[in-house]
């Protein structure tokens, strides 16, 4: 319990910073919506002038974006990008804290098993993610409601937001795994940024070339937000892959943490 509380105290400022940052990013994007919905009206009029064949082909894909949730699905990519940075940073940071501050011997000579240390650290990281997530949900819900996007389905909105938490947990697991695989982590943010942007770019390229196989290793593309916003369907296959990978990474990280030779400070 002490370790859990200590970690929470250490992460207090970062929690605050990330809660504000995530809310700001999403609010910045949501605030574009009023102008966008104006564009939508213009687009609708344009669409009406097209021949019926084109209208049917285009109209279907266009109408998906013409709702608030469709727009939200589009901007959600960037929100999850930020969330992933936070989560991986957290997972890596919490696990290499002792290595960095040269306090490994201090912690590991305490009469507490490594298993409990790992669990306390993991629990602290998850608590922080949950706390950020709650702030994020309140901020986005409040703003969406304020700008008058009242026609959307609140249940869908909540589930979409929950996907952010899913992606964050995935990157938390990745952070934990990398922290145990890397021989030495000098800069947590350097690893985080490289991995998160790397996966982000893999996802983008998968979309550009339209290859479904890339999707297996593109966590940002496990869930098709737009598809969910319009049809309410989720591709269960990729969700399962995501969850399996997440659990696998956490357990591997755990196994390594228990067994690994630790370098003493001096």
């Amino acid at each position, binding site marked *: 319990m002490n370790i859990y509380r200590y970690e929470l105290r250490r992460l207090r400022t970062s929690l605050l910073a990330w809660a504000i940052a995530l809310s700001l*990013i999403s609010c*910045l*994007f949501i605030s*574009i919506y009023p*102008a*966008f919905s104006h*564009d*939508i009206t*213009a*687009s609708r009029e*344009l669409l009406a002038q*097209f021949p019926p064949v*084109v209208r049917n*082909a*285009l109209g279907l894909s*266009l109408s998906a*974006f013409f709702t608030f949730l469709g*727009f939200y699905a*589009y901007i959600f990519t*960037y929100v999850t990008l*930020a969330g992933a*940075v936070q989560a991986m940073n957290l997972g890596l940071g919490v696990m290499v804290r002792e290595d960095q501050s040269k306090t490994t011997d201090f912690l590991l000579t305490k009469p507490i098993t490594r298993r409990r240390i790992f669990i306390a650290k993991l629990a602290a990281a998850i608590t922080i993610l949950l706390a950020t997530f709650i702030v994020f949900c309140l901020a986005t819900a409040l703003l969406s409601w304020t700008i008058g996007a009242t026609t959307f389905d609140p249940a869908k909105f909540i589930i979409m937001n929950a996907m952010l938490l899913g992606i964050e947990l995935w990157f938390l697991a990745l952070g934990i795994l990398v922290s145990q695989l890397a021989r030495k982590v*000098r*800069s947590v*943010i*350097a690893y*985080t*940024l*490289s991995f998160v*942007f*790397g996966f982000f*770019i*893999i996802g*983008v*390229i998968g979309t*550009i*070339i*339209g*290859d479904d196989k*890339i999707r297996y290793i593109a966590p940002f593309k496990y869930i098709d937000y737009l598809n969910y916003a319009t049809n309410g369907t989720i591709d269960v296959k990729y969700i399962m892959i995501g969850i399996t990978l997440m659990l696998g990474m956490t357990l591997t990280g755990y196994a390594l943490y228990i067994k690994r030779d630790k370098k003493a400070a001096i």
Partner: protein
Amino acid sequence: MNIFFRELKAYRKNVITWSLSIIAVLFASMAKYDVLSSDSTATVKFLEQFPATVQVIFGMNGLDPTTLSGYFGVLFLYTALMLAVHAGLLGADIIAKEEQERTTEFLYVKPRSRSLILTAKLIAALSIIIVINLITLSTSYALAAKYGASTTTTRDLVLFSIAHFILQLLFMTIGMAVAASRWWKSAAKAVALLIFTSYLLSVVASLQPALRTVCSISPFVHFEAASMITSGSLPREWAGVYGVLIITATIATYLMYRRRDLRV
């Protein structure tokens, strides 16, 4: 000279990993180039009449991905992002690592002035980003040549490469300046924040052209593949602005680093 070679050796693994990742990304992106259908041109024609935001959401950015230049143009933002991350973190790390690794005393008791050490580090970082840049360029060129690159494509690739280099230099020198200043506890974090914000601002700018002026502090906004391809040149005035910024950051690095306290 020793410091220079020492740094090159220290970053060998880093350079290899990054080069391979960039090569892998470029190869993966080109995997489907030849089968990329051009039947979407009719749709594109219709979409061109729509407002900017709607176009952007549909992935239209003034680039035609069925041509080689356009295809690399689509990739440009992402390669630029990778190179910027690499250069920024490198700049911050090459200065900050002595203090993180507790090797400050070891290095600074050597009969070398701080300016000399800094110069060696600067040249080492510069060589590394040039290597990464050339690897990106040559891989792109090799891939383009496979699909029959014309002289315009070659010109565009060189243009992208120069734009990449300006961005790399900018983020590298800023990283070094931040690490030299000690205003931030972690220079890498500050650089990461800067790059991330710049990228998000470029997304906002493309979504909402009205906000472009606000977002123009982000360098990603100015180096746009589409306008570089159509004009066949770099955005000169902005290249100038960034040139000044790069020089300022370098001078600031020297001034601050020469006379600051070092943590041992």
